[in-house]
């Protein structure tokens, strides 16, 4: 991928996390260190329960998020659309994938080894700062949306609320739900 393309992807990723005014060069430098992968529709990106060995930036396309239901079957809960940080929990030592991801359309991802991501997150320089902000913003938004939805459900009545597990999981994973 050319430096111009990396810069454009970095700009889009930053804008998606309230950093439209940030310098894209540090994040473009991070993307340049990543392994680029092109996925065909239906191709597995990672599987629920596997060690989270990479932090993945979805640069183009869409990936479907699936979670095992109580019977053990994969159930789609939503999708991530580019630009997005996918599987951010890989930034945490020893984390495992909490869901499976499969390309829902031809997609391009940039994958950073988890150990490199953790080293970068501890770095006070601008690349570390931008990566920390993106992760903090993504995690905060996911938890805030999940909490708000739970509070809406629990505040509606004292009787058992008609909660949709898929919606809760989609919010927690930062995925968008497809219209049903």
């Amino acid at each position, binding site marked *: 991928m050319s430096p111009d393309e990396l810069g454009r992807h970095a700009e889009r990723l930053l804008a998606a996390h*309230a*950093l439209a005014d*940030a310098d894209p060069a*540090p994040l473009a430098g991070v993307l340049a260190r990543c392994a680029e992968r092109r996925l065909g529709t239906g191709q597995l990106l990672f599987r629920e329960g596997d060690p989270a060995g990479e932090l993945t930036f979805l640069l183009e396309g869409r990936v479907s998020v699936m*979670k095992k*239901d*109580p019977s053990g079957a994969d159930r789609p809960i939503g999708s991530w659309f580019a630009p997005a940080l996918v599987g*951010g*929990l890989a*930034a*945490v030592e020893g*984390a495992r994938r*909490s869901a499976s991801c499969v390309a829902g359309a031809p997609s391009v991802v940039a994958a950073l080894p988890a150990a490199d991501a953790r080293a970068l*997150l*501890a770095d*006070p320089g*601008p690349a*570390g*700062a*931008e990566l*920390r*902000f993106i*992760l*903090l*913003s993504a*995690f*905060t*938004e*996911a*938890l*805030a949306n*999940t*909490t*708000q939805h*739970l*509070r809406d*459900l*629990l*505040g*509606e*009545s*004292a*009787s*058992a*609320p*008609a*909660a*949709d*597990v898929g919606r*809760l*999981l989609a919010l*927690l*994973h930062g995925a968008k739900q497809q219209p049903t």
Partner: protein
Amino acid sequence: MSEDPAAAARRQIAALGPRGWGGRTLADADVDALLRTAPPEQLAAGAVLAREGEPADRAFFLVAGRLRASVALGGAPDRTVNEIAAGEVTGESALFLTGGRRTATLTAVEPTTVLVLRRELFRPGAPNPALVALESQILAGLARRIERTDAQIVEAWRAASGDAPPSRMGLLAVLEGTS
């Protein structure tokens, strides 16, 4: 004569040791730089630091004491969803989301000191090593909450029969996981 709040906070931070910084050791100069930008606030037991529903534009690094986080749910008595101990950060969604509101009321359980963390401090720039350590600590805490919430949603899903929705009790457990 009462102790200067910044000096008291410096002493309390020193007592926390590396656990206040995610296991890192910081130079005194870095802590002093943080205290200049994040002023300490002292609370008596029972004082309310932030109220549910208020606009949220700052977070708090608890350097001494203890806070209770409680929520009001549909007219029911306030429910405690978390207790925050010295060395932890709370209210962090205010730092990374704009336009948010407090999702819980924070009340001092005992005499408590917090550093007030404003959103502007966390914009990428030339961060103080103390802020980098706090960001790393916040990140690890958020990741733990996401993992815990995920496990509790799955547990509530398993406990419900068939495709039935999770019980109210199950959802309350999930809510506590997010808090």
